[in-house]
């Protein structure tokens, strides 16, 4: 600004002078109207953030489900193809000689003149069936072996014939040796056969219920200002999406206790006599409704290490705040406030944990799970952002 101008114009002098003679009184109505507009704008911003959070969570869940569905579908297709191939091989009469080759009558007539065709076919068909799982090389070896045996059994004159097609005059039962049996692949896995699984894997249910409990340390400001521990206990329900991924929800009753400077609190309206307290201590009873994805990171025979990530919604059942003042002479000070507010804060906190689960029984397991809860929005009457940490101990039952 280059400085005041010389106002030669009387109009300019008038407005310049009058602008400095302001006499404006404070009006509550100005700020009430503005407060309503600001609240509406905050609500809109909050709605947009929640929408983004829900969309992100939905995409994440859909992505996981899609990936594991595709993975399972691929495995299922592979299994189906294997079973189908097995069935097709079973229906074939002979692996060694799937299609009866035409018998060279010249060699046959030399050895067995006048042998009827059907008798010859009966002889050639009377060959041992080999298991489906025999590799092609083994099948060829068998064919060669059988042919070699047959050649040895043929009269000398027949051996000289270049045609080694099966013209054995008598039945030759070639049974694989016992050692060969063991070398061969196991019995055919036909669709009609049942596979016996170990006892633990039988009757596997995807649903499980859990009873959880945990101590709770909550703060609204720095971690160094933790207050008296609270506690959590509740029920969870879990659905196994795949062998490693599960989704769970539940209801956890939480008593949280925290304390901090009054700057961390933004209650509606003003506190006593315009004097803010120096410290506020809060104790709230909250219903925590989490939605969590659990991933088994490392699996062992009877245990596993897992990690979880999810979001929690807080329902404030009861809130109690105590206010401490440096100035004890303020007779108008409010020392405490409490109410069953019942406010709901959907998707207000994000939760992360890592844990260890041990199977004490095929249907029962125990878990130890340190967790943290990080605020995504303010909650409660005092509009605080709650940071929580603790360690869940739970016992789970697989239905």
């Amino acid at each position, binding site marked *: 600004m280059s400085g*005041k101008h010389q106002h030669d114009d009387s109009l300019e002098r008038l407005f310049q002078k009058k*602008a400095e003679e302001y006499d404006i009184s404070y009006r509550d109505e100005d700020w009430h109207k503005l407060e309503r507009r600001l609240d509406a704008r905050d609500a809109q911003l909050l709605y947009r953030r929640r929408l983004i959070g829900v969309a992100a969570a939905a995409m994440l869940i859909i992505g996981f489900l899609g990936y594991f569905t595709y993975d399972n579908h691929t495995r299922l297709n592979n299994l189906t193809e294997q079973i189908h191939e097995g069935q097709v091989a079973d229906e074939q009469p002979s692996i060694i000689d799937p299609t009866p080759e035409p018998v060279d009558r010249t060699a046959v007539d030399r050895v067995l003149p006048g042998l009827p065709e059907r008798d010859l076919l009966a002889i050639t068909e009377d060959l041992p069936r080999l298991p489906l799982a025999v590799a092609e090389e083994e099948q060829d070896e068998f064919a060669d072996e059988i042919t070699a045996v047959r050649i040895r059994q043929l009269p000398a004159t027949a051996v000289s014939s270049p045609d080694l097609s099966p013209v054995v005059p008598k039945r030759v039962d070639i049974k694989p040796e016992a050692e060969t049996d063991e070398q061969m692949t196991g019995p055919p896995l036909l669709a009609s056969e049942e596979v016996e699984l170990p006892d633990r894997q039988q009757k596997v249910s995807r649903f499980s219920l859990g009873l959880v409990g945990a101590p709770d340390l909550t703060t609204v400001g720095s971690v160094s200002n933790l207050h008296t521990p609270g506690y959590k206990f509740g029920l969870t329900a879990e659905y196994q999406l795949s062998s490693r991924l599960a989704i769970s929800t539940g209801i956890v009753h939480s008593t949280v206790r925290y304390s901090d400077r009054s700057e961390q609190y933004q209650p509606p309206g003003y506190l006593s006599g315009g004097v803010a307290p120096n410290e506020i201590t809060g104790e709230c009873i909250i219903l925590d409704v989490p939605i969590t994805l659990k991933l088994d990171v490392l699996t062992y025979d009877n245990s596993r290490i897992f990690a979880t990530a999810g979001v929690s919604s807080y329902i404030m059942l009861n809130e109690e705040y105590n206010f401490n003042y440096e100035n004890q002479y303020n007779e108008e000070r409010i020392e405490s406030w409490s109410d069953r507010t019942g406010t709901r804060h959907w998707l207000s906190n994000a939760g992360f944990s890592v844990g260890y689960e041990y199977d004490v029984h095929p249907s029962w397991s125990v878990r130890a799970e340190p967790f943290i809860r990080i605020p995504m929005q303010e909650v409660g009457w005092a509009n605080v952002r709650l940071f929580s940490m603790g360690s869940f101990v739970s016992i789970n039952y697989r239905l």
Partner: protein
Amino acid sequence: MFYAYGMSITLRYADTREQGAAILNDAFMKVFENIKKYDERRSFKPWLRKIIINTAIDHYHKEQKQPDVMDLESSEHAMAEDETVISGISYQEIIEMMQQLSPAYRAVFNLYVIEGFNHEEIAGMLGISVGTSKSNLAKAKRNLRVILEKNLT
């Protein structure tokens, strides 16, 4: 403490008292957000004033409408030399007269006459040319003379 001072500035730029309160609220938000940048060795009022004026100009840009091409009927009468009569006008009346101007004329008049900026500075702040700034000032003064004369008669 600074409410009246702040409103005395924003009312000159706003169409209504509600809008003036909204501008003042935004200005105070900026004060709180930038309080760490305030140099305590300097006086607070000029720093606050600068933030309020800039906030008022931001609001002007957001709600900028087509310049009012319809000027008020120009007064052929010179303003009364007797300032005793017009000095009796209250601050509230001054504000009401200014709120009858279009936003473009009002902004230039405020920045030139009340705040003391020159036309080059005003052109930069409002995103107009120097010529437009001078033209708008002249039109604002002409319209105010008409309004003033109507109020006095």
